């Protein structure tokens, strides 16, 4: 065989970067497929107007999952007087756990099996940008359906649409306490002692749009919070159905609903712009302006560059992404293309350490396998043990996206423990040297290839592969 030329070596490296850095790690044959299609074209072919893939499994819409949670509350209330309710309560709690675990495993199976790894990584970025967390009890049964309903359809559409969908989804309204926020001068506010909760308004400004240095003040937070009072979750058979003027159609119980009764009257001023009081539309108008604000483009551009390329990304890359966002009016398909076309994203050094989720998913992909939905706990347990239980980030900021933060000694030790278990399973299936080649392509270093070849057992060889610097990084 003739020695490979410089340019073919470079092409092989680009194909492995496409699959491991832009994607979620290589399944057998995937790097070859990317090389054959030309790496950039391989990635761009994964962008599509209908958005992300949807996980498959026994998954119900949020409205049904909220009904299960409301059942839990009812049983808790009844428990005080009724001994039989205890058994019912246990059953409802088990149902909620089951819903959450099925969602986690279905999403993991999609990530492990999809041939469109870039499309799924892009989706996971947006899901983390618009964080809701199952660590809050009410959100546990709907964190998965939130992602399926508010995020996945919009990942290649307009940012503004995803912002509106996430801000109005019951999971977000409950996670950031908006559903209970009441305008102090609204009819409801005047009737009983209840009032404003500014949590959602603040996090939309700080985390979802402008960013913490985006130039807003406490007064903007409070005004925005007043503008979105009335955004709430339907209980069904109320509002418009019950004849309240101005109320949105309550639709199904558990969906979004606007309640004029709790909306703060009057015009609002946010970021020096005045918004007339047109009920539900007032908050939406603010959201539209936030989506179009230059600070939002800059904030999103930087987060994308940090996620895909480096904890400390080149300013030229951030500028390019910001330009792509602004010139397209926040069209995320165009922003994705800008990222793929940025030379800074293709630098050979792998600056990012995988998160635990990326690590576990890429191990499944390397093995050419996917988690079994009949044993959802296996996948979920892996991630709990590695401190990244799906849908359960510690705060509204989402999971850390910095390598420095994931490179904690304790985390590395836990990854070794997990890699040894995974290697046990992999050792029954494959040849380590071949798996290393198909998982890393031109990124496999001679040092790691040698260590894998010299391993005493196949189990040890797979553990070395999974823990090698090039597999841990991307």
């Amino acid at each position, binding site marked *: 065989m003739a020695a490979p030329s410089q340019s073919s070596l470079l092409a092989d490296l680009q194909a492995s970067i496409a699959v491991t850095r832009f994607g979620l790690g290589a399944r057998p044959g995937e790097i070859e497929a990317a090389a054959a299609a030309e790496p950039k074209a391989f990635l761009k072919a994964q962008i599509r107007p209908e958005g992300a893939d949807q996980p498959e499994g026994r998954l119900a819409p949020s409205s049904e999952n909220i009904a299960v949670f409301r059942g839990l509350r009812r049983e808790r209330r009844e428990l005080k007087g009724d001994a039989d309710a205890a058994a019912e309560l246990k059953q409802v709690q088990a149902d909620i756990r089951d819903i959450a675990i099925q969602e986690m495993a279905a999403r993991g199976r999609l990530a492990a099996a999809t041939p469109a790894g870039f499309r799924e990584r892009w989706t996971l970025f947006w899901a983390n940008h618009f964080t809701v967390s199952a660590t809050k009890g009410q959100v546990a049964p709907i964190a998965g359906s939130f992602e399926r309903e508010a995020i996945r359809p919009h990942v290649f559409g307009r940012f503004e649409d995803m912002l509106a969908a996430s801000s109005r989804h019951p999971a977000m309204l409950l996670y950031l306490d908006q559903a209970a926020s009441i305008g102090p001068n609204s009819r409801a506010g005047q009737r009983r002692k209840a009032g404003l909760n500014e949590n959602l308004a603040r996090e939309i400004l700080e985390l979802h749009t402008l960013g913490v240095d985006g130039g807003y003040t406490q007064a903007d937070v409070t005004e925005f919070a007043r503008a979105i009072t009335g955004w709430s979750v339907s209980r069904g058979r109320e509002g418009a159905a019950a004849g309240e003027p101005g109320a949105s159609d309550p639709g199904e119980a558990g969906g979004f609903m606007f309640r004029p009764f709790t909306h703060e009257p009057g015009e609002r001023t946010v970021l020096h712009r005045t918004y007339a009081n047109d009920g539900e539309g007032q908050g939406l108008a603010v959201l539209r302006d936030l989506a179009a604000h230059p600070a939002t483009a800059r904030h999103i551009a930087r987060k994308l560059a940090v996620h895909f390329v480096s904890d400390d990304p080149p300013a030229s890359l951030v500028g390019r992404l910001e330009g792509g966002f602004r010139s397209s009016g926040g069209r995320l398909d165009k922003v994705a293309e800008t990222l793929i076309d940025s030379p800074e994203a293709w630098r050979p050094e792998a600056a990012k350490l995988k998160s635990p989720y990326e690590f576990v998913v890429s191990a499944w992909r390397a093995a050419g396998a996917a988690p079994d939905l009949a044993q959802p706990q296996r996948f979920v347990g892996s991630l709990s043990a590695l401190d990244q*239980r799906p849908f359960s980030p510690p705060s509204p*900021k989402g999971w850390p996206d910095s390598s420095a933060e994931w490179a*904690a000694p*304790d985390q590395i030790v836990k990854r070794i423990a997990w890699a040894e278990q995974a290697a046990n399973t992999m050792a029954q299936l494959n040849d380590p040297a071949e798996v290393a080649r198909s998982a890393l392509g031109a990124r496999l270093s001679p040092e790691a290839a040698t260590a894998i070849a010299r391993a005493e057992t196949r189990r040890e060889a797979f*553990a070395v592969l999974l823990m090698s610097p090039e597999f841990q990084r991307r």
Partner: protein
Amino acid sequence: MTTSLSRRSALAYAASLGVSVSFVGRAAHAGSERDLASRKLVVVVCRGGMDGLSVSPPVGDPNYASLRERIAIAPFGQPGGALKLDDTFGLHPALASVHRLALAGQARIVPAVATPDRARSHFEAQDVLESGATTAYGAGSGWLNRTLQALAPARKIEALAVSGNMPLILRGPVQAGSWSPGGLEGHDQRLPRILADLYAKDPLLGPALASGLQTQDMAKAAASMAQLQANMQASGMPAQPAPAAQPRQNPDAARQVGTTVAKFMQEPNGPQIVAISIDNFDTHANQGAAQGLLAQRLAYLDSVLGGLSDGLGAEWNNTVVVAATEFGRTARVNGTGGTDHGTASTALVLGGALKRTGIVGDWPTLQPAKLFENRDTAPTLDMRALFKGVLAEHLGIERRALDTQIFPDSATAQAARGVVA
């Protein structure tokens, strides 16, 4: 403050290009190098904005009950009432261990302390709390890491983060260990050596692996580990809805986190500087009073602190613990039975050899005109001044290092005096 530069620290001064460590000379500080060398510091970072008006409820402040309404802690002596400290302040009834220590002169409150950040953003305020910088994202490393750097010429000591990932407060050039309940059992003995070779040139993975393995060895030596893991597993998957968070709700598990860390700290070459992260203090809705969401988190904090002080035994006299949060919460209850992001909050200072009692810093009161921006407890003490006071009095760190290196540009936030000495 009088300081005397020992010969050894003078050498250290020369060696460290302007960063010096000297030892406070007053006899009251037991300022010999030998004493200082055994000193230990634990910083507990309470994340989410811990509500100071519930941690140390000022039940004697005439405005407290009306501002707080149904989430006010009841006066002294009533059912669920505050645990009395003085005529104004009590402690939350869930903080029984802290109260026991306070009665013994081993715990104090700092009722109106705040970082220099005023943005009311969790993430910006935590950044400032942990980086020690004047503004958010002003330093890439943490002030405890820079404390280790400042101490290194005189004393090389170990540090440990009790956390699944490395918190900013300990991030930086000096490698610190990290540990959280869970960990590694019975792994392939060859694998760590193979990986150490592969990681030799990797600036992130190499040091992390070395430190992780060292902590694992220490954990094996700590007798309670097996027991702790058994408990964690028993209370964890899959029987609970949120296993990752579940062990943290359990006061027994929390106490064992405290006692295990105390055991680590007593190992030869064990950590003398420890950072513990406790989260979930962001009580926007239904925070409760004597019982409820916040009470559960405070009970967890109390159990960790109780486990730590009991577990340290005689070493408790060499230890200072500071528990602090990124900001306090609004003085008024909000519309949903909770509180929103505020400004000043309460910090706790604990230790077996505190020299003084009473509150640290002034109390601005809750009079309407005194509230910061008509909503929050007004700060009377800069968080950096509190930390600097502890570092000066307890670890003997000199002013120049405090003002420039550990807390950059902080000369205006002078070290608080009489905090621990």
